[in-house]
């Protein structure tokens, strides 16, 4: 019998369809993930341009476990700097957002421009006392050497990504042409308007959130609400697409008008045939021109973000890991500048379907927590993500776990396991 706690985790399964439980429970692996996924070689989501519309605006954000600040400088440029003072390392920015001319660390009042350049150091030339100058920084001290850590920034369609890794490929290459197309469909140049935030802490490994949105097997089964009201069914017209590395994906689905066939509802024990919703506004869905067909496109951009279009509800979902078994999940719901008041209201009402209290996503957080509990109790075991086979390829249906296999194929490569 295998030891419950493997001393040296080894991926002893062929391919990527059987994911060892230790991939979600091992502390040192988690640190390596932060290093290789969040701090190197990847673009991470930090926020939306619309959150910092004016010069001087800033917003505190997170990449992996590192606090960063998204700023709009006086010249209108967008910058991302690490929230750590160059002097003694203090995480100086405590407000969540605001408007400032400069950043000043309260500890010793070192001050920085909104682009992160050090501009002032108190007592740099020492202090005069009794005709002599006491102390001060050494004469070779150069402010240019002591700015905040500046990240590489990419802005596309109003969405801001950043990377600690200045050698990272371009955002366009990172996403690849197929993902770019779905990204541009949602962020098509119209100005975004912020509708608000939801924040939840989910006690599960961060990868489980990516997997949840790469898994079209569960929505028609777990989310009975979806099935009952016909928003998502296993026989919806759909496509699953990945980038060339299989790390990002889009689940593209078009709601069918047909009645549910017994085949797709037979396994759903809680399916309520003939159930009518009391207040129709919850399902007052109006197709928008930019959809160009699909009623839902769920896009996972590895490792840090999910872009959601579910009917009229659009949002970004930011994954902020805080340990191997927990992550913060921050939802930013938005609309577009040219939305009518009716459309805004519709988006807000449909927001009831999503978020930590959502009719169809509260249960995602719950299953992630309970999966993590399962992994922790027998870390020697593995999952069986073999719906639709063993490989990772694009498909034109949802009856497959191909996207999860694709993600782990990539993960194994980057993680060297």
């Amino acid at each position, binding site marked *: 019998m295998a030891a419950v706690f493997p001393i040296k985790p080894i991926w002893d399964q062929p391919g990527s369809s059987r994911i060892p439980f230790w991939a979600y429970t091992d502390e040192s692996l988690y640190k390596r993930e932060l290093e290789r996924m969040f701090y190197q070689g990847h673009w991470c989501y930090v926020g939306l341009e619309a959150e910092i519309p004016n010069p001087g605006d800033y917003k505190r954000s997170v990449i992996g476990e590192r606090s960063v600040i998204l700023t709009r400088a006086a010249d209108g440029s967008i910058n991302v700097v690490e929230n750590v003072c160059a002097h003694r390392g203090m995480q100086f920015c405590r407000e969540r957002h605001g408007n400032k001319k400069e950043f000043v660390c309260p500890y010793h009042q070192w001050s920085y421009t909104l682009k992160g350049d050090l501009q002032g150091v108190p007592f740099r030339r020492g202090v005069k006392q009794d005709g002599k100058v006491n102390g001060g920084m050494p004469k070779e001290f150069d402010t240019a050497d002591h700015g905040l850590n500046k990240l590489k920034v990419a802005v596309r369609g109003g969405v801001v990504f950043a990377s600690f890794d200045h050698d990272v490929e371009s955002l366009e290459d990172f996403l690849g042409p197929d993902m770019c197309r779905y990204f541009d469909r949602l962020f098509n140049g119209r100005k975004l308007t912020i509708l608000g935030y939801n924040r939840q802490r989910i006690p599960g490994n961060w990868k489980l959130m990516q997997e949840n949105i790469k898994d079209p097997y569960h929505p028609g089964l777990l989310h009975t609400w979806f099935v009952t009201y016909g928003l998502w069914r296993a026989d919806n017209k759909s496509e699953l697409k990945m980038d060339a590395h299989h790390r990002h994906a889009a689940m593209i689905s078009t709601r069918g008008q047909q009645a549910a066939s017994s085949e797709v509802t037979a396994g759903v024990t809680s399916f309520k045939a003939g159930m009518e919703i009391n207040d129709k506004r919850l399902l007052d869905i109006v197709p928008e021109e930019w959809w160009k067909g699909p009623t839902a496109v769920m896009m996972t951009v590895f490792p840090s973000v999910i872009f959601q279009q579910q009917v009229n509800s659009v949002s970004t979902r930011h994954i902020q890991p805080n340990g191997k078994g927990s992550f913060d999940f921050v939802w930013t719901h938005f609309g577009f500048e040219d939305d009518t008041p009716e459309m805004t209201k519709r988006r807000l009402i449909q927001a009831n379907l999503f*978020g930590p209290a959502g009719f169809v996503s509260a249960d995602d957080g719950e299953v992630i927590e309970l999966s993590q509990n399962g992994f922790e109790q027998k870390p020697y075991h593995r999952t069986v993500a073999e719906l639709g086979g063993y490989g990772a390829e694009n498909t034109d249906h949802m009856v497959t776990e191909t996207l999860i296999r694709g993600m782990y194929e990539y993960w194994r490569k980057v993680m060297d396991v």
Partner: protein
Amino acid sequence: MNALDFDTWLALNRLYAEYAAAVDSADWDKWIDLFVEVCDYRIQPRENHERGFPLSTLALLSKGMLRDRAYGIKETLFHDPYYQRHVTGAPLVESVADGVIVAQANYAVFRTKLSQESSVFNVGRYLDRIRVTPEGLRFEQRHCIYDTEMIANSLIYPI
């Protein structure tokens, strides 16, 4: 009615107590009964409330939507079972006019999962508009504006 007479004050306190008892005993029919037909029930992060962002974590705009939520809780939402317990502070009455009482109260909701310790799940304040009806006092608006920065995974039951 411009001032709150003693009987109405007692009725207001009773309404708050009945509300807490309904949501803590998962009596969703009773919960729905405490609202008028066209009502506005919201659970909203304090951040959105103060920054003027309209998004709520949950926003139910009619008794019909309350019924739909109750149906979701009972029939479609999967979640780890838990008890909840409300402690509601004394109402602070702001105004009484035209049969509507505007009041607020602090609340704390504790959550207890099976075989686990109790924890503070959600704290905030209710911003209420309460209508005097022939059937008694009923909520026309209950906005639960919560301080809790991170929802502990998911929020299933009404606050």
